[in-house]
């Protein structure tokens, strides 16, 4: 281990001396990519092996990551990066397969639903083909199954089923010895993702009971209610896992809290779609977090990030203050900004922004 670390440190030192970069392998990426995209070192490449259609708006992508990928635990997610029209886009998705598939066959799956107006999800559906290669980060997240068997309730909404599929498969394979109940909310029968897989799981894993609830098949919409929770035996003793749209998560948290379940018992995860672009002045401004300075400040109106930083007493590097010189470019880790010159909205993910012409819209986090 130590030898390996020393080796990487020596390589990084040599990389800086010879190639002006700390990761010498990435110097050869442009050449490697031309020969075999799976040799790229800057990220973990993953080849699309198969694409399965789950529903009218959901597909499962079966990926084979390069063998150096370090794996994951059930319930975790990864960032993927794809180049769309020349722009590298990063998005987070839950892994829908069990870690066993990775350990045995070297494959993982991502189950992805189209978001209305979503750039990346729609591109993945329309343009990603079998044989293509995309980038992967290491897995992360703490939406993990209990270390020791105890009763579990899983509440999923729509595409929120994805990390839960991974959890359930793993529990079944490991013979997790405690009652497991899944309440799965979908709009209509047609929206059920991995219905056959859930049926098969319930058939071979007797501890599991699955309830699929359609919210929009009767005159009155059926959202999560007390009756649904009453149907779960021994609810108060259960570890609860929530994954779904904001409305469902809020409702579930509220109802569970009323029933006296503690915060430490309830686990949540979900990735909300980005807000669609609008130039309405009233939506501008928001909390700006400067990660390195450990500083959060509120802003309103069309103040730029540079002005906000300076008003907060920070001294970010800047030059022309009119969008020419890029001296003030800074890494944004999350949030949406509007370009003051073009009026265009940025993506919600990680990217470089020019502080002097970027106006926050909603909360923004910067590496500054």
């Amino acid at each position: 281990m130590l030898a390996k670390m020393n080796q990487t440190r020596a390589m990084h030192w040599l990389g800086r001396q010879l190639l002006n970069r700390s990761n010498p392998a990435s110097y050869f990426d442009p050449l490697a990519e031309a020969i075999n995209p799976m040799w790229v070192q800057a990220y973990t490449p993953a080849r699309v092996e198969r694409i399965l259609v789950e529903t009218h708006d959901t597909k499962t992508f079966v990926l084979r990551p390069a063998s150096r990928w370090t794996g994951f635990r059930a319930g975790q997610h990864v960032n993927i990066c794809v180049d769309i029209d020349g722009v590298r886009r990063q998005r987070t998705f839950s892994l829908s397969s069990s870690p066993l598939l990775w350990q045995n066959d070297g494959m993982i799956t991502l189950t992805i639903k189209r978001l209305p107006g979503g750039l990346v999800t729609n591109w993945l559906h329309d343009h990603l083909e079998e044989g293509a290669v995309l980038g992967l980060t290491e897995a992360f997240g703490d939406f993990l199954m209990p270390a020791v068997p105890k009763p579990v309730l899983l509440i999923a909404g729509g595409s929120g089923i994805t990390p839960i599929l991974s959890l359930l498969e793993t529990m079944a394979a490991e013979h997790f010895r405690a009652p497991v109940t899944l309440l799965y909310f979908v709009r209509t029968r047609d929206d059920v993702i991995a219905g056959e897989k859930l049926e098969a799981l319930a058939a071979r894993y007797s501890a599991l009971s699955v309830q699929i609830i359609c919210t929009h098949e009767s005159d009155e919409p059926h959202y999560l209610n007390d009756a649904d929770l009453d149907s779960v035996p021994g609810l108060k003793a259960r570890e609860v896992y929530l994954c779904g749209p904001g409305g469902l998560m809020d409702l579930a948290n509220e109802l569970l809290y009323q029933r006296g379940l503690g915060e430490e018992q309830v686990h949540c995860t979900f990735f909300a779609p980005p807000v669609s672009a609008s130039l309405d002045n009233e939506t501008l401004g928001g909390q700006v977090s400067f990660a390195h300075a450990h500083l959060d400040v509120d802003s309103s109106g069309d103040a730029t990030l540079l002005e906000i930083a300076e008003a907060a007493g920070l001294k970010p590097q800047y030059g022309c203050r009119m969008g020419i010189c890029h001296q003030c470019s800074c890494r944004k880790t999350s949030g949406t900004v509007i370009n003051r010159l073009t009026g265009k909205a940025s993506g919600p993910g990680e990217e470089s922004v020019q502080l002097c012409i970027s106006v926050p819209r909603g909360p923004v986090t910067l590496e500054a």
Partner: protein
Amino acid sequence: MIQLDEQQLNELQKDLDAVRDEVLADLGERDARYIRKIVRLHRALEVGGRVMMPFGFIPPVFVAATATLGVAKILENMEIGHNVMHGQYDWMNDPTLNSQTYEWDTVCTSESWRRTHNYEHHTYTNIIGKDRDYGYAVLRLSDDEPWKPWHTLQFINYILLSVFFQWGVGLHELETEKLRRREISWREKLPFLKDFVRKGGRQAFKDYVFFPLLTLPVAPIVLAGNVGANLIRNLWASTVIFCGHFTQDAETFTERECEGESKGHWYLRQLTGSSNFTGGRWLHILSGHLSYQIEHHVFPDLPAHRYPEISERVQEICRKYGIHYNTGSFMSQYQTVLQRVLRYSLPERRSANPVNV
């Protein structure tokens, strides 16, 4: 400089902004593919040059290896490094092509370059006393700077600057002229000097120690080839850059006329202070498209390979406002640069026709 009233300047700004917006709206796959292709070519040339170099005991191989490595360095400095650091490809969100993290294959640190070039030179272009790139504090290229006897021999300075160009650029931010005038102290320059030594040391170690030692039996050949490659790059970079602002018709400005200027006035200054040269596609690529210096100065953060496409539109706008679009063949433009260096080595000649500045 041609005088435009406020309304004309506003209109000029609108016209140029329209060109810029059009390109920005069209950025995408094509630009990404172009720069990645150039990066791939650079890697192939550098690897090829370094692999060939130890076989340089065969004379034609020595020439080929040196030229290949020289061209690799030129591509990396001009078409990749310079342009990436301008933020031309920041929109791609590719960490290896990011203006703030890119480090290039030359003595000058990227950080120092972004301060002295992106900010000072591109903001205060050709303003005597503010744009330190104007003559690099060693050459007198305009009568706005008073003549001193040592200017007589400035042609020698010019040759030296060209030969050691990467070291000159690396030391640019030291501001020796201000140190001499005691306006700043050495102590203030300590952090800069530290960075300079680290990066300069790294560059020298790589080309003059590591690779020669790696191929010990032929170390002198590899050393000579690497020196040659750096020299090729130095001479070419210096020549291209001198053609960008020191041609006969490139105008200079005073601090007073630029005080509190509008964006339109800034545009006008970029148009009249820069000069292009014409040539084939590869001449443009090897110059990092600084052969389109005018377009570059008007739109420093648009991907440079776009400049040839928008050049006609920029010329049209220049004609509309009666602005001189300074261009000519590479040789003719370079000739006026040499004339300028020579002419201003002598004191101002009031009676004679002054150079058109």
